[in-house]
């Protein structure tokens, strides 16, 4: 965990509502599944955003313009400095990936899976990615996953592109382990539809993002955990699904 001042190198729209922001400065390599927490003018609380890509000196996030904070972020221009907490959360455990890892992402749950895919590809693993969207105009990151050499299947709920339906309608027959991130209904469906063990990344409204306020606590089979600190990634076996 570090508090750093980063500078926006680029901030551009990928779709109508989804933006990609690249920040440079004193930031070290982050682990797939970790997040950063950004301080914004006129917002009291920071905005926790998952890491899309990371290398020493540079971090990229992909975020959806949905509320006051992300609206403000979408207007920020290159050269703007931001106070950012980096290296937050546990991230995905890559040691369990096996020979044929499957990545399942829905909407703005997809970004943390990109750095994961990149890292798994660098380890020489074949990676399958199933990416779910509502409709054709909301698709992003498909080509980025393809350029890593991943086998990519896109689904849209309305059938306007890729396979019609949800990610759970497009899961491959064979995979060794899965990693997922997306909206809660999707995560619950993935939990039921998957045959192997896997890891889920959760989101929750956070106060601090670094374990101090207990705002984002959840119950697991291993006791109470903080999504920001012991999470956001939890193993399938530990999760208690609430009705």
């Amino acid at each position, binding site marked *: 965990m570090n508090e750093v001042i980063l500078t926006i190198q680029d901030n551009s729209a990928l779709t109508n509502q989804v933006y990609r922001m690249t920040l440079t400065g004193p930031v070290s390599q982050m682990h797939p599944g970790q997040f950063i927490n950004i301080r914004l003018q006129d917002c*009291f609380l*920071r905005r926790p955003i998952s890491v899309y890509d990371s290398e020493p000196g540079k971090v990229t996030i992909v975020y959806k313009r949905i509320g006051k904070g992300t609206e403000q972020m979408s207007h920020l221009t290159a050269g703007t400095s931001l106070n950012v907490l980096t290296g937050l959360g546990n991230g995905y455990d890559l040691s369990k990936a096996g020979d044929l890892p499957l990545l399942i992402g829905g909407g703005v749950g997809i970004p943390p899976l990109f750095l994961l895919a990149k890292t798994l590809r660098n380890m020489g693993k074949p990676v399958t990615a199933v990416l779910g969207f509502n409709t054709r105009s909301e698709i992003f990151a498909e080509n980025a996953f393809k350029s890593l050499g991943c086998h990519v299947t896109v689904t849209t709920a309305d059938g306007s592109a890729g396979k019609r339906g949800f990610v759970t309608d497009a899961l491959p027959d064979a995979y060794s382990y899965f990693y997922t991130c997306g909206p809660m209904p999707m995560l619950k469906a993935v939990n039921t539809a998957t045959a192997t063990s896997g890891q889920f990344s959760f989101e929750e409204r956070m106060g601090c993002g670094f374990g101090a*306020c207990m705002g984002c606590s959840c119950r697991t089979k291993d006791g109470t955990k903080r999504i920001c600190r012991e999470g956001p990634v939890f193993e399938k076996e530990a999760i208690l699904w609430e009705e």
Partner: protein
Amino acid sequence: MGRMTVNLCGQHLDNPVIPASGTFGFGYEFAEWYDINILGTFSFKGTTREPRFCNPTPRIAECPAGMINAVGLQNPGVKQVITEELPKLSRVFHKKVMANVSGFSLDDYVYTCEQLDREDAVGWLEVNISCPNVHGGGMAFGTDPEAAASVTAAVKKVTRKPVIMKLSPNVTDITAIARACENAGADAVSLINTLQGMRIDLRTRRPVLANIMGGVSGPAVFPVALRMVWQVSHAVQIPVIGMGGISTSEDVLEMMMAGASAVEIGAANLVDPMACKRIIEGLPEVMDRYGIKTLDELKGVS
């Protein structure tokens, strides 16, 4: 003794800055950000007789210049606090800590305070009779002078450590509660706990917080807190710890001019993990700017 030294119930603090309960965990999370021994002390996470998970999420909402929380006293229970949290804390913090205690009955308060009274690491007991986020307890004790007095008197019987009663602003006359605590033997009062508030999500048309209501904190509440600290410090003889929206060294001085002997800092820690370090390090310069030689001379000058 330094120019920032203050006295809190007979014990010296190197400076008046005390991270507030519920925003600082059991300290060791913040020890990863800075050496927490620079603090006056800190008030640890509100502790109850039994472990508590508490309210469903979302528990956090935002508001202009502040936030609303409805955590509801999540904590591992006093037994685990003593056997696990305090030993972990002792590795990174070498001063006396303020133990924050909450309960749902007189027995709860008494039991938890009795347990913590035996701990050398605990310098003060801060008794929370003002949590707005729990039902059938918490604030119920802090909104009635007689109930506040009964908790104070019961706790005083089982401890020799200074007892600080933490007061709710969600009352008509906070001075009446403060005086009741003083008359029942409280060694100090701390105020304010959070103000009750809520937000509604325009898209879902539902309250943002699963608990519907929560407690507002942050700079938004500073003027309200300052006013109440001023009123209470003019109504009682015992020390007053001022809190509510403090986020700068200047705020600390303002709160002390209103009558606070020390200050607690809450929400600021959550948006800036280094907030208390910055406030402490900034104090000498701000004191110089306003011609203040020692903090001791400030108390209640206004």
